[in-house]
């Protein structure tokens, strides 16, 4: 199969997944969550145009997402009040244009340098924009933000876009288009030069490209897509407020992109889906979810700097060579201590959290994994220690086997090295 047809197949699969997802996960919560995921996929991919493709670490990407969201919300309100014949599905274009505008404006001053200087400028710009958002109340609506009503615009083919499922499909279509476009951009002269500038900005200058210009265009395009995502978010929530342009949102997109993996195109998609799911669901399961988030992030930085997709990509040649099964025994062997370690960690965190935070008002009894236990008694703690120590020792014992299995599986037998 050629590279091109493989790409087409991947996109076809993506389209099918987008189409049938709400049939598989039909509850209102799932559809709402998947709508957010669609928005975040665009946002995270736009961020990766900077971080992964061009090597620019931004701490203020939410500025474009947020500002564009406000423009979209105002556009919707304007269209409704003036009775303009603007259908909802074109509103993301407003966001895109707004994103582009601010991308060009702020990109011109921030992309002259890469590295730390760029990161710090984006940090400062992010702080400034959130500060001004609170000062300019007419446009940003103060703390409350700007609310809008997506169902009051011109209907398209009878769809009024009140029900969440219609919004889901609207987002899904935009998501597909944006993902395809962003993928396409990586395959253009500019996209290739972004990689070149990321790797070696100096040499790029000596083959005729201004590193600053490349960064600037990448930045502007990235802001455009972030803008589309922001507008979709405004449509989805029917509300935009300054949180969306703030440091928290900028941090979240960094987290998604990095955890998903910056080295593969699919990485941010995985990250956006996973982190959005965890953000909305983990807080139902544990009060210490932010701690898990932090540990997850550190774990990825320490043990899988390529992110989830990077780790998966390591296996790609083996899958293609049909030799992935050679790893199976070693992985199965590792699964047990790994699970022990994981369960031990969860127990440790949950028990500590309960004893330190909740025990004073709720008593020492709690339940973890639906198993009742008393934090003041020894058994759960002994179990925790046993699991942790056992897990670590087990992994140490198994680790060489994984190495051997890798060596055996990747042994050159012709074909790609």
């Amino acid at each position, binding site marked *: 199969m050629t590279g091109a047809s493989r790409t087409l197949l991947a996109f076809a699969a993506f389209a099918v997944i987008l189409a049938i997802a709400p049939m598989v996960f039909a509850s209102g919560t799932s559809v*709402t969550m998947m709508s957010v995921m669609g928005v975040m996929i665009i946002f995270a991919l736009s961020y990766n145009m900077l971080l992964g493709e061009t090597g620019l670490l931004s701490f203020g990407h939410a500025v474009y997402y947020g500002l564009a969201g406000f423009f979209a919300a105002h556009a919707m309100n304007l269209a409704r009040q003036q009775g303009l014949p603007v259908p909802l599905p074109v509103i993301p274009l407003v966001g895109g244009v707004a994103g582009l505008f601010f991308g060009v404006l702020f990109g011109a001053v921030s992309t002259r340098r890469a590295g730390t200087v760029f990161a710090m400028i984006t940090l400062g710009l992010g702080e400034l924009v959130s500060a001004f958002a609170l000062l300019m109340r007419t446009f940003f609506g103060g*703390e409350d933000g700007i609310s809008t009503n997506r*169902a009051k615009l011109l209907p398209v083919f009878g769809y009024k876009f009140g*029900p969440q499922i219609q919004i889901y499909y609207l987002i899904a279509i935009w998501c597909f288009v944006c993902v395809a476009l962003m993928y396409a951009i990586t395959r253009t002269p500019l996209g290739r030069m972004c990689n070149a500038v990321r790797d070696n900005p100096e040499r790029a200058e000596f083959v005729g490209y201004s590193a600053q210009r490349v960064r600037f265009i990448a930045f502007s395009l990235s802001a455009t897509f972030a803008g589309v995502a922001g507008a979709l978010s405004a449509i989805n929530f029917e509300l935009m*407020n300054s949180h969306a342009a703030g440091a928290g949102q900028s941090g979240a997109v960094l987290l998604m992109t990095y955890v998903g993996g910056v080295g593969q195109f699919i990485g941010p998609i995985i990250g956006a889906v996973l982190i959005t799911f965890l953000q909305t669901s983990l807080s*139902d*399961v544990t009060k210490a979810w932010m701690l898990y988030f932090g540990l*997850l992030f550190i774990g990825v930085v320490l043990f899988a700097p390529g992110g989830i997709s990077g780790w998966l990509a390591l296996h790609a040649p083996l899958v293609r060579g049909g030799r992935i099964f050679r790893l199976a025994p070693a992985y199965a062997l590792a699964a047990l201590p790994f699970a022990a370690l994981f369960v031990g960690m*969860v127990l440790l965190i949950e028990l500590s959290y309960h004893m330190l935070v909740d025990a004073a008002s709720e008593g020492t009894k709690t339940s973890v994994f639906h198993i009742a236990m008393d934090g003041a008694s020894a058994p759960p703690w002994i179990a925790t220690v046993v699991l942790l120590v056992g897990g670590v020792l087990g992994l140490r014992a198994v680790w060489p086997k994984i190495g051997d299995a890798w060596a055996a599986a990747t042994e050159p037998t012709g074909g790609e090295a």
Partner: protein
Amino acid sequence: MRNLTLGVCVAALLTAGAARAEDTVKLGYIDPLSGGGASIGEVGLKHFQWLADQINASGGLMGKKLEILPFDDKVNPQEAVVQARKAIDAGARFITQGNGSSVASALIDFVQKFNDRNPGKETLYFNYAAVDTSLTNAKCSFWHFRWDANSTIKMAAITNYLKTQPSVKKVYIINQDYSFGQEVKKLANEMLKAKRPDVQIVGDELHPLLKVTDFAPYIAKIKASGADTVITGNWGQDMALLLKAAADAGLQVKWYTYYAGGAGGPTAIKQTGLDHKVFDVVEGNPNSAPPDAQKTEEEFRAKFNVTLWYPRAVNEMRMFQKAVTEAKSLDPKAVALKLEDMKVKTFDGGEGWMRKEDHQFHQDMYIRSFGALPKGAKFDEEKTGWGWTEVAKVAAKDTVVPTTCKMERP
């Protein structure tokens, strides 16, 4: 990495396993349960769980048990909307929230639209702490009820009290620069002019929200202005640091605040040694409450090791139970209609009523000062040894302010 996959599976399993029996009435509690706001959200949750236990002990709602479903909104309006959606999916037809007027505003909007688009699945929203007046003015909704006194009512109470204090001559107003602070600033100016035209407003300051580390320059300005009284809506770190800087510089004024009693406030005031110089305005004061309320307070403190911060939550839940009983229905619309114009004896003894035009609860308000406790006072705060002493009561009828609400009624 597999750590992650596992985590997802576990989370998914647990969520799936959490399906609950259908024979309970579910109240979705949407407030911060993580991050900085969690200190407040957790305490609020305890209030509601405890109140639900009481309702269930007294026969429940139409014979059904009330169950509180907690959802973490991370004080983010968009997140709150997602969590509200989850609450509804989990079977909650009633939700309650308190922290952050921006969240409240988003929820009002969400509930209104959801009810418009899903007739027959209406959801009712009880607000126990978001005080932005516009929530019962321009943004008012039939589906929203508020038990906390809004900013306007609180300022009306403060200024009514200041009317009786001739020693107040020069007032300085300082607030956080966001919608709540700006509202306090505006109200303070208007009401002081109306009620105490002789008082001179010597300064009117806004500073960015949670961005100031050192308030010394602001204190220098207050000092230079010759103020004898400061009115502020500051809370959290902005309240604590402001008072600390004042004490450091030896500034001797009286502080009229909205949130000196908020989490961490008493600790900070005790540190500054400003004895009975800091005042706040609330709907109940444990040290001067009627005996049954004091008993409840004692039980609550004994169980949870924390002050019963929200007497209004007690009012809210008691009125909820009453409305269900009177309506003989668990239908949110029927409950809402019964809540309108409902008159009750409040937790702290006075007469209270839910105004029909804007769904704002009206109740007696108390001005209190924080400091060393007189003999016989039972309750201190945050283990400081200091507590609140009532200095004035403002009757509910004296806090009534006309509303601009134009409610769309179903």
